[in-house]
């Protein structure tokens, strides 16, 4: 008799996801889906609000990466007040970047230490009672301590620029609200109250050494697990094609590294993307128009960014990027589990960039806000921790938002996560007589590599857990496993 497995909710991800796996009467997988079952409607209810409220309102999409939404919206609103990114004062640009690097640093630290490391340290088939952050704290207290302090450092940077760690307010149309003081920045440089930025750089390098050691011991697993061809999308620096998180041009490649999109300024994004919908998920499926729905989808996030960039401007991270590229002889990397390695290279990049910015006296300047000539439309694109984040607003002559379109990182990764689920279903579950907890966790391991934020992607709120259900060929539930 054919069956369907359902994993609901998916654990150690941000948001509520569900997986279904359809089996035939010989336990062979016939199909598999990653469903996102939340709905919130942020794009709709922001309509009618004054445009200057957008950066404050939309950051409520998420408690993990509100800064990314705040900054993407701020970049869009800058355009509505007549300013392109390079029109902002240098101090404003640098303070926003400092905020952004603090955000990416803390988010990546959270993902690696709290969510992903239990699978790597204990194995995906370890006892789930142990395979979690509490288990990591018990067996690897030094690692846990560093993870906590790295996340804290990023959060303190956010608090420095935005006033508080979650849902602070840093930006104003055309700039930022405040500079930082010499005393405030000393807190991050001198190491007296918290470990210094130099310590953050050292620890970031250490954790890359850990993942490289893990790679040496588990190369076959990392190369093989949930590996499949895909496009890769992200921003790159407008001048030199280097890794860029705050402002750049869009670039995409296909699975072989051929450029499919290049030098596309943010304001032109909607000339190149469509969003498909499926009846079984609230999450849309973006793809490149000129390639089409079937092959035009892209991964975004750390792996994509390291794949598409031509280099990294900070020396230590660039050295690590070259080593990462050498692992595939310079070719494009389509191996999902390498996302963890790429994410840690970005942690190091953020730490180096934070040091550069903290030591730059421009962040002490009072030259914070510029003005321009009013426009009716604004588009802000930023590389959030999980990937390319697009905010697009239109306003009427009374300054009210009339249209809002948000394409969130996790939405770009929707097809990629579905591919990951199908890979695990076909390779690890299909034909097996019994579905075990370890098999279920492998599905989660594959999804977790993308660090999906389902609250952001559906603009939804709610709980976060995973559920596994078995259906027969007629759609009847044969078995169900819930995990909260």
């Amino acid at each position, binding site marked *: 008799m054919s069956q369907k497995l359902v994993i609901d909710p998916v654990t150690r991800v941000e948001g509520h996801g569900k997986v279904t796996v359809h089996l035939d009467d010989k336990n062979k997988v016939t199909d598999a889906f990653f469903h996102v079952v939340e709905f919130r409607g942020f794009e709709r209810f922001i309509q009618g609000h004054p445009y200057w409220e957008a950066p404050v309102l939309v950051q409520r999409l998420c408690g993990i990466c509100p800064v990314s939404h705040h900054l993407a919206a701020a970049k869009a609103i800058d355009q509505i007040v007549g300013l392109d990114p390079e029109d902002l004062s240098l101090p404003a640009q640098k303070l926003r970047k400092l905020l952004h690097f603090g955000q990416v640093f803390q988010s990546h630290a959270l993902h690696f230490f709290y969510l992903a490391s239990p699978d790597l340290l204990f194995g995906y088939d370890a006892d789930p009672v142990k395979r979690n952050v509490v288990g990591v704290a018990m067996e690897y207290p030094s690692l846990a*301590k560093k993870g906590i302090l790295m996340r804290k450092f990023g959060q303190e940077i956010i608090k420095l620029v935005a006033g508080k760690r979650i849902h602070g307010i840093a930006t104003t149309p055309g700039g930022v609200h405040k500079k930082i003081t010499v005393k405030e920045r000393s807190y991050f440089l001198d190491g007296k109250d918290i470990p210094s930025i130099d310590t953050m750089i050292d620890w970031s390098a250490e954790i890359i050494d850990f993942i490289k050691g893990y790679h040496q011991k588990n190369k076959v697993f990392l190369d093989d697990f949930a590996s499949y061809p895909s496009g890769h999308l992200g921003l790159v620096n407008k001048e030199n094609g280097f890794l860029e998180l705050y402002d750049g041009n869009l670039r995409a490649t296909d699975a072989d590294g051929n450029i499919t999109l290049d030098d596309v300024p943010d304001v032109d994004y909607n000339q190149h993307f469509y969003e498909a919908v499926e009846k079984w998920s609230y999450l849309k499926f973006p793809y490149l128009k000129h390639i089409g729905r079937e092959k035009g989808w892209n991964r975004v996030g750390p792996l994509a960014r390291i794949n598409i960039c031509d280099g990294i401007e900070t020396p230590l991270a660039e050295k690590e990027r070259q080593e990462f590229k050498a692992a595939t002889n310079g070719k494009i990397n389509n191996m999902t589990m390498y996302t963890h390695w790429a994410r840690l290279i970005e942690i190091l990049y953020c730490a180096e960039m934070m040091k550069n910015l903290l030591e730059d006296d421009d962040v002490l300047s009072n030259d914070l806000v510029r003005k321009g000539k009013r426009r009716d439309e604004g588009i802000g694109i930023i590389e959030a921790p999980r990937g390319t984040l697009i905010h697009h607003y239109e306003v009427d002559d009374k300054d009210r938002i009339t249209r809002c379109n948000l394409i969130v990182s996790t939405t770009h990764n929707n097809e990629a996560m579905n591919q990951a689920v199908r890979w695990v279903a076909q390779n690890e579950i299909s034909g097996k007589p019994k579905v075990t907890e370890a098999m279920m966790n492998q599905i989660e391991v594959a999804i977790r590599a993308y660090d999906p934020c389902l609250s952001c992607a559906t603009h939804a709120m709610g709980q976060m857990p995973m559920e596994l259900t078995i259906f027969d060929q007629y759609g009847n539930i044969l078995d169900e496993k819930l995990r909260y």
Partner: protein
Amino acid sequence: MKNYGIKILVIGIGNCGRADDALGWSFIDEIKENLPDNYDCEYKYQLQVEDAELISHYDVVYFVDAHKEQFDKGFTWGEGHPVATHSFSTHELDPGTVLYLSKSIYNKLPKSFILGISGLSFELKIGLSDKAKENLSKALEFFNQKTLNLVT
């Protein structure tokens, strides 16, 4: 203001956009201006792993949160104990887990107490219900007595 020597932290947990879920924050609002110098206060949406590091710097920690259960006296009070639970996400760590992590990672286990104040409404709304306000007053009175009338 007299400094009593030991470091004390009061953590208010909640969300002011969710009606009575603001009880933890409202509690902090009421006490923070009049606390002795050795007290610190924190507003939190949820407890997280890094709060283990935060509480490791204190001798005494009070966790204050809204509680869905309706208690006769309007609140519940008890001592906190470290518990090794595991969570599926970064959300919703309980005080026991945070205490456990502090003990495991930092070898510090502050004395702790949990104050749960009964709330009735947790919908999207700003402002406490009348019953929650009443319960908050009772909890404040109890807390003031418990902590030697620290709040003037």
